């Protein structure tokens, strides 16, 4: 007799990781795109001037991302036809139910925003922008919450996860915006300033959270030790290489050195690197978090 029946498959594969990543990106893109309307007067109007030309493109990008995310999430279900059930049979203790509610609402906000832009109903922009931004915030929040409420999994069940996911979405959203602005040649100085500010914040917080995670895992319980060993043995490259060095340390260095960080090309590079990190950090957390139970 061998240990044959310890076999099982873990619930969430790459679809979920990609979804988490893209939805975060969509959310932050929305925030950038709606910034002229929502934060127009803050930062001395920096957001307005920097993002004004990006509004429509950003909203369309956000919509495209959402249109990828929705079907991806639905296709990942064992019963795609029942994708409305979480709303139909709404269960208030399940973040997924909330997420299912927010997701279409968020979509409506994008469409509404675009509609307002197209029909020049400028007075609509701010309220839709604020509502949309809140829902945008809810996207990475709920995905993080989805993990956080799994109280049985110590890697996930801590309040930093939603925060981390929000922060990671800032990175990935910034990357998208930076790339688009750079390519379209609309990377103005104000835009650099704004993006730099957000990226610096995001990468620095990610760095802090990474360190916190590292400390917690190392001073951890049996389960944390186990996860630590899984991370190092099965996801060593993703964790240390992709996430830490490429995704956090490298962009952090780039944005922290004022001269480099305000170079449009290097800033874009830093943003892209941080987005890579944002993906692989989530992937490691999602995968390794499940493997602990796989053989139990």
């Amino acid at each position, binding site marked *: *007799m061998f240990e044959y*029946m310890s076999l099982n498959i873990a619930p969430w594969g790459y679809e979920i990781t990609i979804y988490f990543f893209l939805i975060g990106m969509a959310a932050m893109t929305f925030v950038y795109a709606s910034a002229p309307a929502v934060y127009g007067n803050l930062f001395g109007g920096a957001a307005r001037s920097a993002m004004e030309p990006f509004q429509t493109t950003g909203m369309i990008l956000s919509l495209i991302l959402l249109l990828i995310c929705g079907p991806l999430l639905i296709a990942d279900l064992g019963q795609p036809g029942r994708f409305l059930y979480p709303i139909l049979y709404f269960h208030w203790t399940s973040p997924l139910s909330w997420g299912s509610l927010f997701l279409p609402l968020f979509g409506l906000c994008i469409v509404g925003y675009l509609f307002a832009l197209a029909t020049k109903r400028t007075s609509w922009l701010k309220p839709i922008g604020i509502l949309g931004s809140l829902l945008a915030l809810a996207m990475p929040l709920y995905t993080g919450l989805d993990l956080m409420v799994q109280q049985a999994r110590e890697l996930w069940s801590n309040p930093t996860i939603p925060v981390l996911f929000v922060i990671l979405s800032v990175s990935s959203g910034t990357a998208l915006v930076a790339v688009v602005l750079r390519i379209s040649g609309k990377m103005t100085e104000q835009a650099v300033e704004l993006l730099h500010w957000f990226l610096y914040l995001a990468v620095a917080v990610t760095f802090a959270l990474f360190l916190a995670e590292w400390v917690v895992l190392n001073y951890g319980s049996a389960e944390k030790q186990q996860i630590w060993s899984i991370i190092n043995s099965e996801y060593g490259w993703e964790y240390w290489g992709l996430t830490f060095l490429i995704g956090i340390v490298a962009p952090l260095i780039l944005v922290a050195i004022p001269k480099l960080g305000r170079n449009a090309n290097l800033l874009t590079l830093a943003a892209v690197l941080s987005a890579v990190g944002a993906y692989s950090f989530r992937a490691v957390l999602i995968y390794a978090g499940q493997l602990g139970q796989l053989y139990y």
Partner: protein
Amino acid sequence: MKDFAQINRRDFIKLGAAAGAVGAAALGSRRLVAMEQKLGGEDFSATTGAARESVPYTCLACNIEDGGIAYVENGRVVKLEGNMDHPNTRGKLCAKGNSGFLHIYDPDRILSPLVRTGKRGEGKWKRISYDEATTLLAQKIREVIDRANTENKPEILNEIVLKWGRNRTGGAAERFMHALGSNAILHHTDICESSKKVGLEPSWGPDIESCDWANTKYILNFGSNILETAYFMNPNAQRLVDGVVGNKAKLVSFDVRMSNTSGFADEWYAPYPGTDGAIALAMANVIMYEDLYDADFIRDWTNVTAEQLKEHLKTFTPEYAEEESGIAAADIRRIAREFATTKPATTFSYRGPVKHVYGSYQEAAIHMLNVITGNVEKKGGYCLPRGMGWPQPEPEPPKGRVPSLLATPPEYPLASHHVSTLAPYRVRKGEAKVSVWMTFYDNPAYTYPSSHVWAEFLKDENLVPFFASFSPFMSETTELADLIIPDVTYLERHDPESMPSGLYPCLSIRQPVVKPLGGTQEFRQTLIDVIHKVDPDGSLGIKKYFAFDTVSDWMRAHFDEIPGLKEEGGYNFLKKKGVWPIYGKVDPNTAKIVDRNGNEVEADYGLHRKELSASDMEGAEVDGNGTIRKNGKAIGVQIRGRNYVGFGTPSRKIELYKESFKKFGFNPLPTYKRLPTRERKDNELVLTTYKVNVHTQSRTASLKYLAELYHKNPMWIHTKAAAARGIADGDLVRVTSSVGYIVTRAHVTEGIRPDVVAISTACGHPSYGRLAQLRQREQAPDWAQGAASPDISNNVWWDDRGVHPNPIIRLAVDPIGGSQGWFDTLVTVSKAQPGDSYGDVQASVEASDRDYEETLRYAYNGDIHRKNHPEVDIEWDALPPAELEGVGHPDAG
């Protein structure tokens, strides 16, 4: 099983009456907290909640014959469960039993007779009807009979051969052969455990013990895997756990590798293969010399004296046994003392010690431990098996007139359960002739030692001109047949049963729980049809033995006249209940059988001490040894003025001293002989094989639940032995014996002796349907008519079907019991060579031929025999000649 102590209705009534009084005190307080939910007996669909129809049957997923209830939904068997009324099964089935219904719906089951169209073994078949098939077979048989009659040579009838493996027909197959006048009945008992039988029968009558596991305090297991296999796996495993956990009995287990039983035991010892006898003799030595024996029992109930035994055992010291087995003398001494002083105690043994050349000696030595400690037939001790008989319909055909060389080779006069392994060698040498070869429930091309020899043999149309198989599955053997007349599965046929699988004797029945699938026909009906076609007008005098209109008539003839059962409804009672008698209920908390008031129905003990009645004694005579004879038959034994029935031996005592052995130059007392494997060279290892809890021999690899649990059989090798050969866990290895080699993988483990390697059976099928071969995604062969299984076609996830070891296992016959020395093959193991691939098999027929010549030298008339028995004081030059005479007893194995 005919040779078990028979219990008649009178005993049963007595037993029932006595039961009320016992056990009341023991159970009273515990009953209050019994499991509140019902344990079984009804069943509901998990999807609809509807009650399911239930039909009792007797399991044959392996051969323990547990009682079962089949649940049927929309004409389909959906689930099996143990029959709560079966006193030994007690409502439980093992993994195989639970999965047995999958046999019916095996997508690769054969649902119509097939006749070969291509070359033998080529796999080309034509479907024919049962009528055409039985006509063809009858015609082939009739040709032989006609030839025998014209030439007036009854020995020609022995050219009709029936070889079976698992035969639970209750005498039908024997009746068929005897009706045809042939004694060429070959069966698998000699590859199974016959040396155990021959070690026991001359000593106390029956061929097995029935331990009172639940009530014992000490169990010494020699090479039986009680919790996984062995006779009687499910019932014994249940009661062993009750004994060890519930009754705090100690379990000491001897096995060369850590089986589940040895892993469960309080102490596990791994002796050198084939040395259990030395250990048992050394224990007997300690018990005798330390005066720990039961002097009264030896005096009253055996044919030896304590002094005689001491003298015989003198040299078998624990130190000697340590030298032979590697088990420390101190442990042997301690265990012997514990065994003798803890009462009650029992041994159990199965194939481990007996599947060696001289296995019968080993069994006799183990058996003796119970005798000298007086544990025989005691509560909690080593009891006689309790079976029940049933009458055979009259008229019964006599045996054939001439003994068959194939069935009863004259070199093995003590092998009362035949020797079948030699058959292909003998036919190939022209010593015997075959005209019609039939197989029933038999797969020698897979299950026999040097199995390649069987495949070669059965493929050869000169040696086997006509070959018919009655199998419902396309096995390694059946695929070589000319004609396949499929039987049905055990859930679709009739058989009478009685298995001594516990201390409560009972009868049980096998009956179709659903209509045979796809219009298939049970073997019993095929036999009737063939006989009716061989002798259509009855002029040959054969037909009258098969004067049944239906199979039910036949069953009625078995069951309707049994006293006691008759009053309760006979066959109809069994059809309804599945088992008779019904002793009581299973107490859900203690699992004991209890009566209506919750008092334990205690088993009957001391069967040998039953006293003969005055009418029994009428006209009986008592001889000088106390044996009571009536009409020339020993019926009992007189001991200090009382007349007991005693044991089933000529003297009615336990005959530790076996005159029959001595006659042929064997030691009459239990002894130990060192085997050639004991002289192993340093680089060699002893190859053993074993069974696992979730498979039965060759026939479960296609049951998906079981295959999922266990589908490959890498070779167990100890960490040190592997390291010495540079072998790492999982490495591809070449295992080479003198017959050939196989290429398999190493499973490096601490759970095995460093000088032994072990490969389980039941995997590595080159045939037996698609799932067994992991070809489930291929299209069904055209002979397979079973329904498609989306589950099997899509969800099978494993990719390794194992490698079968039998081709490289040497033929070796125990000269006493006639059984195969399965665990007597030496091998070398090395990392696979370049070009080797997993599953490669190479086996030489010539090498097996040499093994055949070699093994005959151990037979009583062979040269090695005499050399090995210097201590036996007989006229060696006046040994009885090897003559074809005994016809032995064909048995169910």
